[in-house]
């Protein structure tokens, strides 16, 4: 699969379809870091592991470059979906960006609890089916069952927050300026842990219809708070009620913003995020 990706990336540069390819490079002494490849021969040093998402980096690079400059990004499924969401929000100009997508393997999908471990535009590798995150025991413990107990579990986790802003910084979709987490009205400055309702829950709501379940927030969280789990109920609700999934269709707008007013089916309005599993006590 790696060779296939390298080959296609070289073609992109040779045919001048893009001016640079963003991916991972294995450099001297096997050091791995992000890199913008610009000459085909450089691509021999391309690698695909570890999981490293580029959507936000790609957005930043494109902003620095002249309009005519085009970038190809080597993406996994979630990265592609993140790009789609950024395009929808006019954060990335689709004309200037192309993707080169490859599939994750089952181990990666299990590690990520990913239900779609492949991009829609699949250029390399074979797609595996993925896993249902809602079937995971730990996720279930946080989303199902006694609300009081779950609240305690969440509070114990969120209390660990060291306010690194890593969840926001690493989330490919968290790009608002100004950010509500830096607004004194909501989040008190200078204290940790950040107050859970105004910090993590605000962030969760802001991403409720955009989250592509990439897990970047959770992986960046130094204290291991299950942040992606916080998003899963809402994602599930949108899927169930509106057949909507963030990051799939660049032309379909979020139902929370556009369909919400159009009378959802009775009893099927976008539910409260904590109790959206259809198993209310």
């Amino acid at each position: 699969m790696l060779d296939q990706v390298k080959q296609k990336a070289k073609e992109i540069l040779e045919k001048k379809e893009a001016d640079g390819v963003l991916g991972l490079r294995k450099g001297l002494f096997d050091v791995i870091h992000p890199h913008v490849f610009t000459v085909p021969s450089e691509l021999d040093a391309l690698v695909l592991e570890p999981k490293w998402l580029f959507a936000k980096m790609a957005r930043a690079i494109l902003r620095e470059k002249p309009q005519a400059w085009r970038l190809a990004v080597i993406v996994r499924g979630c990265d592609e979906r993140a790009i789609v969401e950024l395009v929808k929000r006019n954060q990335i100009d689709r004309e200037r960006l192309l993707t080169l997508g490859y599939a994750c393997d089952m181990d990666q999908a299990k590690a990520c609890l990913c239900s779609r471990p492949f991009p829609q535009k699949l250029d390399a590798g074979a797609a595996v089916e993925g896993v249902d995150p809602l079937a995971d025991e730990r996720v279930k413990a946080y989303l199902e069952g006694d609300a009081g107990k779950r609240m305690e579990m969440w509070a114990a986790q969120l209390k660990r927050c060291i306010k690194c802003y890593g969840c926001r910084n690493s989330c490919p979709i968290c790009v608002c300026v100004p950010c509500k987490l830096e607004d004194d009205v909501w989040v008190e400055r200078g204290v940790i842990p950040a107050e859970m309702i105004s910090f993590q829950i605000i962030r969760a709501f802001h991403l409720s219809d955009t989250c592509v379940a990439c897990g970047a927030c959770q992986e960046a969280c130094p204290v291991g708070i299950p942040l992606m789990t916080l998003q899963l109920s809402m994602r599930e609700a949108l899927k169930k009620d509106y057949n909507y999934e963030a990051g799939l269709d660049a032309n379909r707008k979020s139902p929370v913003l556009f369909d919400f007013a159009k009378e959802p089916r009775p009893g099927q309005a976008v539910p409260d995020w904590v109790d959206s599993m259809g198993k209310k006590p």
Partner: protein
Amino acid sequence: MNPEFIRTICPYCGTGCGLVLKVEEGRAAATYPDRENPVSRGSLCVKGWVAHEFVHHPERLTSPLLRKGDRFEEISWEEAIALAASKLKETAAKYGPDSIGGLSSAKCTNEENYLFQKLIRAAFKTNNVDHCARLCHAATTVGMLQTLGSGAMTNSISDLAGADCILFIGSNAAESHPVLMGEVYKALDRGAKMIVIDPRETPVARNAHKLLRLNPGTDIPLLAGMMRHIVDKGLHKTGFIEKRMENFEALKTFLQAWPVEKAAKETGIDEAVIREVAETYARAENAAIVYCMGITQHACGAANVIAVCDLAMLCGHVGKPFSGIYPLRGQNNVQGACDMGALPNLYPGYQAVADAAIREKFQKAWKADLSDKPGRTVTELINAAGKDIRALYIMAENPCISDPDVNHVMEALQRLDFLIVQDIFLTETAKFAHLILPGACFAEKTGTYTNTERRFQLLHKAVNPPGKAMGDFEILCLMGKALGLAFDCNSPADVMSEYAGLVPAYAGISFNRLERAGIQWPCPDESHPGTRFLHGEKFTRGLGRFVIPDYTPPMEKPDAEYPYYLNTGRVFAHYHTGTMTRRSPFLNREIEDPYVEIHPEDAAALGVGAGDWIRVTSRRGSIVTTARITDRVVKGSIFAPFHFTEARANMLTNPVLDPACKTPEYKVCAVKMEKDHEAKAR
């Protein structure tokens, strides 16, 4: 130009997280977490995420500066180096070698620290070289050397995840070493017990199963009470003690003086709680003790460390995975600065200057005549400034904020005949310099840092220093040559091979082995993978030794005039003297103003409301700061972070030293407070 992504190491705390700097047009434009770094694995704390922010700050020093009366004038490097060398030589000739002193830096690389101490020792035949470890973990070095034989953290950060009981004593790692807490929480999620011993309800304490808010400075009574209970109950590890320890009888005799009832009285902790915590720790299969400045920064800091070691050894919780003793290192490279011999009594690798055979080895290697007399410590160097010490060379340290009783420090520095300060900003200390040499920050250099778990990690130069500023490595090479030393080292890698040849524990370490994941010393040869935990088969000193910890209550207790205890420390968004973090817009937004934490009842009694300006005064000085009202401090105690130049907590602190290790008692002194009406008006 396309952006480049350069892997390097965070310049702030001793956790040693990996960063990837994004470089655009020669400027560090963003920081990303390094997903491959074995310590941080893709996480950073808030300081790490914005580590690039101060790098291109307009206030960076860009040229050597010479004092002309009240101001500084730019001079060339040739002039600066020639002047520095001639002034130092002159002083040494006039007043003798021991009139020169050097402060090395826990912010600089191992290679720079090695060169710095070599320069002072070889050029001047004095051992007057020290650095800020004196102010934090000298007690650890002294205490652990006597008990275990090595002052280093015994285990690895990742070992914490496997512990069944984690005891925090005087460590607020959630603010001071935030990323490391991830491993602690992994242990908690597995069902481990977490106990915190701290007078303050810190963010760490809020996640613990139990918090023991002991009276300030009563750590030894508490630990002794715990040990007494463990021995009384027969929970100590007899096999381990018989096989691996010495002096157990003496410890037992000592514990006779500490029945749990007495410990309870002294510490203010319930007897039953002391017993329970002692049992939890002793019964755990694997237990770790994490400690920090709350143990070391006391007039009996070294004895506190000894008591911690005694407890761990009594229960056999050393020398195996998932347990051990964790003195968390503050600075990014304070471990390395100690390792590299920036200490007045030790050469690189903790080899004693007083040992003739060792001195001979270094004399041969450095082709220089070396002094056999241990030098002066940080606090002693400053006290003697203008008296026995006539010229001081300070590399990237800021004692005018970090040392206790800074009024005294500022007076002392002004008494010097010649003060050289090498730094990246015009620090509070540099303002007193005769000559300022502009150095480089982490993003501008290649070299290694050693994190708190003894891991050598590589930094890569991402951008050039601003203007005429130069890497500290290059400056030291020029200085060395100007002082007539054979400093023709081409690169940090060369210097590393030099010290690897002189210290058996680093013999197997070289630049190309470090690239991916670093190496934890000891690493005695090139095929050795490095060492995850120490004291496995035997202790570094052979047998472990139970040493008797002598208890000294805090030197200054509240009285009628100064009725409150003052405790000092760090906060999550700033770092030490604030030179870098307070120039970082994101961090400064998070915490802009100095503050002290005051208990609601004390605040009410003084008529102080949240955010009010107050004046805090000790016998040594006075500061104006704001009030944060919180029950995180106990009634009668206040807490002040020490990062703020406009309200330096160290104006207030007591410079009394632990006689064993010369660490000052930062954690306790007596103060009074009043509402400051003038400040409110401005």
